[in-house]
C-alpha cells in the first residue's frame, strides 16, 4: 500500500518535471518570433534614425501616422466590441436551439451557417458591398461589424452547439425540479456550464475582428474610419516592393498588446472539471 503511494508520488514528480521542461521548450519556440519582433522594433537604423543601435523612432512614426494610432485603435475597438457582442448573442441562442430543440429548418440552418466557411472571402465581398450599399451601411463601422459577425457564425454556432450538447440532461432536469421553471433561470444555470465555450467564441471573434484586414478595407472609404490593421499595412509599405520592417515590428507589437491582455485574463476559464464540479455539488 505504501509502496503504491510512493510510486504514485514518484510518478507525479516525474510528470511534473516532464511537464515543465516540455512546456518551457515549447514556450520558447512559440514566443521566439514575437520576442524578435519586439526587440527589432527598438533596434536598427529605422528605430534610431541613424543614431546608434536603439531607439523609438519606429513607434514615433507609428503614432504620428495618418489620423493617429488612437483613432485606429478606437475604430478597431468599436468593430470588435460589436462583433463579439453580436456573435455571442446570436450563437449562444442558436447553439442552444440546435442542441436541445426540434424545429423545422434546424438542419438547414446548421448547414447553411457552416457553408459560410466554405466560400472564399474575396468573392463574397463583392456582392456584400452592393448589399451594404443598398441598406445604407456602406462606409460604416456597424456595417463592417455585421459582416464580421456573419463570418464568425460557423465557428461560434458549432462550438456552442457542441457545448450545449455535452451538458448532461440531468443538469436541466435538476434545475427544473428545484423549481426553476421559467426559461430565464434555466438559461442562467445552463450558461454556467457552457462558459468555457462562450469564452472561446468571444475570444475568437475578438481576435478575428481585431485582425481582420480585407473586409474593413473594402467596405470603408473614409480613412478616419479605418481600423488598425489597414493603417499598419499602409504604414509599413514605405515604397515600391520594399517593406519597412521596423514599422512592421512596431505595428505587430502595438496590435498584439490588447490581445495579450485579453488572453491572460481569460485563460483561467479552461480549468478542467469546472462544469462537472458544479454538477456534483
Amino acid at each position, binding site marked *: 500500500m505504501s509502496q503504491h503511494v510512493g510510486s504514485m508520488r514518484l510518478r507525479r514528480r516525474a510528470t511534473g518535471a516532464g511537464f515543465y521542461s516540455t512546456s518551457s521548450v515549447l514556450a520558447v519556440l512559440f514566443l521566439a518570433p514575437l520576442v524578435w519582433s519586439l526587440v527589432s522594433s527598438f533596434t*536598427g*537604423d*529605422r528605430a534610431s*534614425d*541613424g543614431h546608434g543601435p536603439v531607439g523609438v523612432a519606429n513607434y514615433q512614426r507609428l503614432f504620428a501616422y*495618418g489620423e493617429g494610432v488612437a483613432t485606429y485603435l478606437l475604430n478597431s475597438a*468599436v468593430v470588435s*466590441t*460589436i462583433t*463579439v*457582442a*453580436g456573435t*455571442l*448573442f446570436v450563437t449562444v441562442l442558436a447553439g442552444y436551439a440546435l442542441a436541445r430543440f426540434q424545429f423545422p429548418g434546424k438542419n438547414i440552418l446548421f448547414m447553411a451557417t457552416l457553408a459560410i466557411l466554405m466560400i472564399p472571402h*474575396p468573392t463574397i*465581398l*463583392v456582392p456584400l*458591398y*452592393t448589399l451594404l*450599399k443598398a441598406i*445604407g*451601411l*456602406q*462606409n*460604416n*463601422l*456597424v456595417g463592417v461589424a455585421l459582416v464580421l459577425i456573419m463570418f464568425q457564425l460557423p465557428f461560434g454556432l458549432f462550438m456552442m452547439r457542441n457545448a450545449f450538447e455535452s451538458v448532461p440532461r440531468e443538469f436541466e432536469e435538476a434545475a427544473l425540479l428545484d423549481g426553476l421553471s421559467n426559461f430565464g433561470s434555466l438559461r*442562467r444555470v445552463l*450558461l*454556467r456550464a457552457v*462558459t468555457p465555450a*462562450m469564452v472561446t467564441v468571444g475570444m475568437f471573434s475578438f481576435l478575428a475582428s481585431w485582425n481582420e484586414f*480585407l473586409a474593413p*478595407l*473594402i467596405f470603408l*472609404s*473614409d*480613412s478616419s*474610419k479605418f481600423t488598425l490593421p*489597414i493603417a499598419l*499595412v*499602409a504604414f509599413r*509599405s*514605405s*515604397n*515600391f*516592393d*520594399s*517593406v*519597412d*520592417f*521596423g514599422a512592421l515590428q512596431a505595428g505587430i507589437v502595438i496590435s498584439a498588446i490588447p490581445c495579450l491582455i485579453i488572453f491572460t485574463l481569460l485563460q483561467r476559464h479552461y480549468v478542467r472539471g469546472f462544469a462537472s464540479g458544479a454538477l456534483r455539488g
Partner: protein
Amino acid sequence: MMIRSIRKAAAAGAAIAAGALLLSACSGGSSGDSGSGSGEPITMWTRDVTATQSQALVDAWNSSHDQKVKLTVVPAANYLQKVGVAAGANDLPCLMASDVVYAPNFVQKGLWNDISDKVDSLSFKDALAPGHLEVSSKDGKTYAVPHTLAISAIFQNDVLLEKAGIDPTAPVKSLAEFDANAQKVAALGSDKVGFLFPSDSAGTLSFTMFPSIWAGGGEALSKDGTKSLLDSDESIATFAAYNKMAKDGSAPTSKTATGATRNDVFAKGNVGYVLASNAVLQGVSDSDSVKIGVQAIPGAEGGSATFLGGDVMGISSSCKDVDGAWDFLKWSLGKEAQGDIYGKLNQLPVRSDIQNSDDPRIQALVDIIKDGRTPYSLRYAETFNDPQGPALKVFRDALFGDDPAAALKAGNQSITDSLNQQ
C-alpha cells in the same frame, strides 16, 4: 458569481454597441459620396506607396481652400481589388490614382473621364512627364495626368566604393563596368555584396531590366503593346550581362532577393550598388556607413535610360463634381505643389520645367528622366507585374539559367500570348 460577471460584461458590451451604433449612424451612414456639387468634399484614393506625397498635397490644399479633399490611402496590393469592387457599385472616388502601367487598362474600361480639353488648357502641358501622358491617352483623348514619378536607377554606397578604391563621382557607363566595380566591392569581405538587383519579384523586374534594353537602342514591347520583343539582341545582351554578374560573384544574392528587405540591407552598409527606384532616397538615410549616390542605368555596352514609373491620377466616371476635382488636379501640377511640397519630400517633379531641390542626387535623377520611357500595354499588369504571369519565369530563367538567349527565345511567345489575350 461567474454568471453575474458575464452578464455585466454582456450588458456593458451591449451598451457600447448601442452607443457605437448611434455614433456611427449619426456620423458615417452615407456612402463614399463623390461630391454632388461644389462644396462637398472631393474624395481621393491613392496607393500607399505614394502616401507621403499625396497626404502632403492634400493637407496643403485643405489649409488654403474651402472645398476640401478627403484622401484615402489604400494598400497597393489591394488597390485593384478595392477599385474593382467600388466600380461595380459605381462608387468610385472623384480623384482616382493608379500605377501608371495600369493606366491603359483603366482607360479601356472607362474608369476615368475624358479631360482632354482641361489638360490642353494647361500652359505647361508639354513639360508634363510625356510617358505618363501617352499611356493615359487613347485615340487622341487624355484621361489622366501624372501624379508621382518613380524612376529606376542604380544607387551606390559611396562609403563602400571608396573603400574598394572606386571613385564614386565617376559615371559608370556600362553594365560591364558595373560588373568590374562590383567585384572590387565584393572582394572587401564575405559579407559585402557588390551589386544587388532584386529579382524574386515580378513587379520589379520589368522596371529595372527594360531601361538597359532601351539604352542599347532596342525595344522591349511593340508600340501597341501586343507583341513582346524580348528576344531581340539588345534584350539578350542585357540579360546576359546580369546573368554574368549573378554568376561571377558580383551579384550572388540577387537570385533570391525579393526587394522586401532591400532598403534595410542597403542601409546596413554592406552593398555597393543596388538597382532600385528613387524611393530608396525616402527609405534610407545617410549614416556613417552609407552615403547614397546615383547612377543612370546603362545598357550592356553604353547609353542610359530609365523606366518612368509612378502613378497617374484621373477623375473617375462616378464623380459628380468634375470641376472641383479638376481644380485640385490642376493645383497639384502647379509650382507650389511640384516645387515646394515635392521638393521638401525629395520627390521628383512631374514637370520638367520645375526644379525643386538642390540635392545633387535629385538633380542627377532629374537628368535621367529625359531618357525615360513608359511602356504601353493593355495587359501589362497580368503579364509583367503579376507573379503568376508568364514574364517572371522567363526573366528568371534568363537571369540565372545557363543560356539567357535560349531562355528568352523560348519564353518570348508566352509573353506575347499574354499581352494579346482578350
